């Protein structure tokens, strides 16, 4: 498989990711630099899980949203949209490849966590899948936000507005034992499943099962991504 010169949109993203060496080194190191000291420390499991979760969410949302708005401002995305490629396919490739690249950045840190906190393989698999589903959802949120603004700074602001309630619902810090409506809403947020899986990895028992943690956020992430792909014609049209 040839990445350079790229012959498809997703290969272009991979080529750009690999081509910026300093940026690549920083991107690969910073999740580990944040997560590994936390994993090695003795802080309570729920907070350690929250730190890993926050890094994943922020990396996913800000990464996709910011790079997309930059491409929109440059006009290059509109130019790409004028090729015969399906706009839905372009956005789907943006989403999946960005989620995959974010996942690649998180993998060393995740591997470190698994080494420092050995857990049953089912939970390791569940946590890994849930992190990817979280990244996919977070990237979808970033892409969705790029529909409403062409300013990277606005993306950060809007992301904060959207993510804080979701993080609250997921029970990273507060809302640890939700009931009623909050419990029902929590089941709809993919981040919550990742949080449960990471708590299990860090040694805190939850009511979740590995199977549910694998299936539900994957389904929710895929649905969110599919819904965001539907905004492709608007996202790729010129901002006039």
């Amino acid at each position: 498989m040839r990445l350079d010169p790229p012959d498809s949109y997703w290969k272009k993203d991979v080529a750009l990711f690999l081509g910026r060496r300093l940026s690549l080194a920083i991107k690969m190191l910073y999740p580990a630099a944040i997560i590994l000291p936390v994993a090695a420390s003795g802080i309570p499991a729920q907070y350690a899980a929250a730190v890993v979760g926050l890094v994943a969410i922020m990396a996913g949302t800000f990464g996709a949203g910011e790079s997309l708005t930059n491409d929109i401002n440059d006009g290059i995305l509109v130019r790409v949209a004028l090729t015969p490629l399906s706009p839905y396919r372009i956005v789907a490739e943006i989403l999946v490849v960005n989620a995959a690249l974010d996942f690649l950045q998180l993998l060393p840190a995740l591997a470190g966590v698994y080494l420092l906190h050995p857990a049953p393989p089912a939970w390791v698999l569940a946590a890994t899948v849930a992190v990817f589903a979280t990244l996919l959802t977070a990237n979808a949120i970033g892409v969705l936000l790029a529909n409403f603004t062409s300013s990277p700074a606005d993306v950060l602001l809007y992301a904060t507005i959207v993510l804080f309630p979701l993080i609250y619902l997921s029970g990273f810090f507060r809302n640890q034992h939700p009931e009623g409506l909050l419990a029902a809403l929590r089941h709809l947020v993919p981040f919550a499943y990742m949080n449960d899986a990471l708590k299990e990895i860090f040694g805190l028992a939850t009511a979740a099962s590995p199977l549910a943690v694998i299936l539900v956020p994957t389904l929710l992430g895929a649905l969110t991504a599919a819904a965001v792909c539907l905004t492709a014609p608007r996202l790729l049209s010129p901002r006039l």
Partner: protein
Amino acid sequence: MASAALEAENITRRYRSSGRGVEGVSLSVAPGEVLGLVGPNGSGKSTLLRVLSTAIAPDSGAFRVCGLDGLRERRKVRARLGIMVDRPTHYGDLSGWANAYLFARAYGVPEEKADRALRGLFEHFGLAEYRDEKAKTYSYGMAKKLALIEALAHEPAVLLLDEPSLGLDYTSRLAYQRKLREAAENGCAVLLASNQVDEVEALCDRVVFLHRGRAVAEGTPEGLVSSLEGLRRVVAALRNPVPYAEVGEVPGVRRVVPEGRGLVVHCEDRPGIVAGVVGAIVRCGGDITGLSVERPTLEDVFARLTGEALRGEDEA
């Protein structure tokens, strides 16, 4: 009309924010024909190209590309278009070659054919030795040439070019004109938006004038220019710029436009008029270093039709 490669009918598109755009513009371009779209800044050239490139939908009207409906069959239409927007944009961290290859493949050009086509185009436009440099290191002119390569590599049936030669050096301009003629000879229909009248006169088979969003005239460059029978332009190069109000008062002078340090005087072709103009310039304090009497250009036709200049003074 049935054989037109590009056919637009009553295209209207107004921007709510500014009220500018195009209104009721119809045009057609046959295979192998180069149609110039000429008008000053804000006349609607880029808006019309945006509509015809399927970037934006018109408020009303319709267009067809190679018989395909531009509103309903957009992806098929895009596959037949070669587009160059006025502001070239690329992935700066990819090489020029990688950018062009990505676009060629996006247009469905097979790997080997893309390689062959791009090699020829990079050579033609003098970019071969810079092909592996990152696009962000390219100068404006080089980026324009790269955009031209991206527009041409898939051998489109219709080329939409917005100010393609702006920013190109003389050699590159000639290379671009040669390639455009070659594309037209091979059956490509070209819609060329520009207010570089010398280029339009040299390249275009027909011209449409746009003024404030409307098509105000259409014809061959020769036909349009010959409609100004009896007009001349006196081009005076001056050592220093001078106030030129008095020149405009010479009987028979229609318009005086400063160009750099000199003056372009549009006047009637009547006996003694050149002497009158020269005298007025000298009385204004002008030190004439060069003088020529020329036939009218498309610029003069536009000015005659609309009462406005085609280019602002800064563009002259």
